[in-house]
């Protein structure tokens, strides 16, 4: 038995073990520590022999470590006579040891774990790290690799996050109805941040990191399965599946990005498109599509078009208009400009972009000059187009993307 086998079981069990232990002990940080200790023990002891029931072994060991920690803590309390020994500690210890995980309850517990990991008291980086660690079951090393940060940084983020959760006394529960919509939005945005890190790497020398995107898709599937009545959970899943379906066509053999209009659509993943469309079908509610659902609907319009020319650009413009109403953002306006250019030509699109610039709504972004350069090129204003694309290249942090911009600028003479 090797490390990979322990990791495999941990991938499947992590969320359930931490969730069940948090439920029993009422202490998320303690539960996470105990679970990590169990993994560390498994790495040593499974090398000799794999237990008959690896998942049960992990849960039992994690429980024992949690009880040890509770005992240590209550012993400490007695010694310093700060508090009378809490009878609840004794109760928690025995129930953790004796009771099996209640299958009906564990789903809500895993969902509660997602809400805790994505809690608004945490910094955005901490939410991502904690979600990948406890819900997805990744190690600090894997998270560090995914986000191109040093391992100690990830470890520090997780340690600090656990302290914050304890200090803020974040309850381990599903958010009350009044907060649910907003808190769910918080979970969705953490998953989406993870996905976009994999689908458009903000830094580094590779455009795509499919392994990172995979983690987000997997988490989105879990969320959609555990919260099937939340349309936006399906909307996010649809968006991720439909975007990832284009991954095989998005980079050339040398890793350079291939733009949508140049992609070989036969390389799109038809199974992923089918899964995305199915999720999109579940994403509509009586209020219509939410922000993720609308973005998924845009991706679906591309996915079902045989070519750029045959794409229903009018529909995409309408979807971007709707998206701009439910989730106003300069990036949405910029994308709407691109769609308008395809539907009605570059001139009206340029007007939208110039409005964005006038209002200084996307300062420092390479996307604005990228789009403006493209539009100017299509209008035949070559020197201006070239200057915009060169500006875009200077602002762009992704190396392959920058090369494409410079190549394009060079063709404009």
């Amino acid at each position, binding site marked *: 038995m090797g490390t990979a086998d322990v990791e495999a079981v941990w991938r499947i069990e992590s969320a359930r073990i931490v969730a069940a232990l948090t439920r029993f002990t009422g202490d998320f940080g303690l539960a996470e520590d105990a679970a990590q200790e169990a993994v560390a023990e498994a790495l040593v002891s499974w090398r000799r022999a794999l237990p008959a029931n690896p998942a049960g072994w992990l849960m039992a060991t994690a429980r024992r470590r949690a009880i040890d920690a509770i005992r240590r803590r209550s012993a400490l309390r007695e010694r310093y006579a700060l508090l009378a020994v809490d009878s609840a500690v004794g109760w928690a210890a025995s129930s953790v040891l004796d009771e099996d995980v209640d299958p009906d309850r564990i789903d809500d517990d895993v969902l509660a774990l997602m809400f805790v990991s994505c809690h608004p008291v945490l910094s955005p980086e901490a939410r991502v790290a904690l979600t990948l660690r406890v819900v997805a079951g990744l190690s600090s090393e894997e998270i560090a690799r995914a986000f191109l940060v040093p391992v100690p940084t990830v470890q520090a983020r997780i340690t600090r996050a656990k302290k914050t959760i304890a200090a803020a006394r974040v309850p381990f529960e599903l958010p009350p109805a009044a907060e649910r919509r907003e808190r769910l939005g918080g979970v969705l945005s953490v998953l989406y941040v993870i996905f976009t890190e994999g689908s458009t790497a903000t830094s580094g020398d590779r455009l795509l990191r499919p392994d990172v995107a995979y983690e987000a898709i997997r988490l989105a599937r879990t969320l959609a399965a555990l919260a099937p009545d939340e349309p936006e959970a399906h909307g996010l899943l649809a968006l991720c599946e439909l975007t990832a379906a284009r991954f095989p066509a998005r980079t050339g053999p040398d890793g350079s990005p291939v733009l949508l209009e140049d992609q070989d659509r036969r390389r799109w*993943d038809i199974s992923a498109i089918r899964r995305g469309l199915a999720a999109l079908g579940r994403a509509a509610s009586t209020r219509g599509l939410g922000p993720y659902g609308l973005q998924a609907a845009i991706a679906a319009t591309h996915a079902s078009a045989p070519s750029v020319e045959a794409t229903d650009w009018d529909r995409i413009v309408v979807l971007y208009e709707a998206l701009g109403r439910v989730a106003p953002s300069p990036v949405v306006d910029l994308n709407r400009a691109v769609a308008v250019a395809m539907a009605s030509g570059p001139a009206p699109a340029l007007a939208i972009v110039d409005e964005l610039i006038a209002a200084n709504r996307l300062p420092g972004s390479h996307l604005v000059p990228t789009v403006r350069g493209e539009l100017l090129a299509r209008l035949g204003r070559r020197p201006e187009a070239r200057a915009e694309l060169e500006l875009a290249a200077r602002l762009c942090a992704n190396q392959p993307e920058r090369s494409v911009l410079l190549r394009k600028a060079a063709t404009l003479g």
Partner: protein
Amino acid sequence: MSTYMLIMRGTDESNAAMMASIDEAMATTRTFIEEMVKAGVLLAAEGLDDPARGVVVDFGGEVPVVTDGPYGETKELFGGYFLLDVASKEEAIEWARRFPAVRGSKIEVRRVAGADEVPGDGRP
């Protein structure tokens, strides 16, 4: 991450044992499927009809020959599959180990090759 197929391979004996308590088999399989859905790994799952109702198209001769019934003398019969999107081969194996299988049956674990690769080109 990779896609793996868990191929269910039953024998006449294991299929008979399963049919003897089919309601229980259906219920445990459904629970297993739900677990995989909640873990975010299940892409597809199908079960095949009775092999006796199958047909074999044999390309051994000049022209394809069609015969009724299961394939040749094979003792293990392909009865269904699960398609999983997992982090590693080890995870695919772990899911296979968890299948509530009847004694005597087997599960073959195979990686699904990507559209841009030739099977067996040395990938993990």
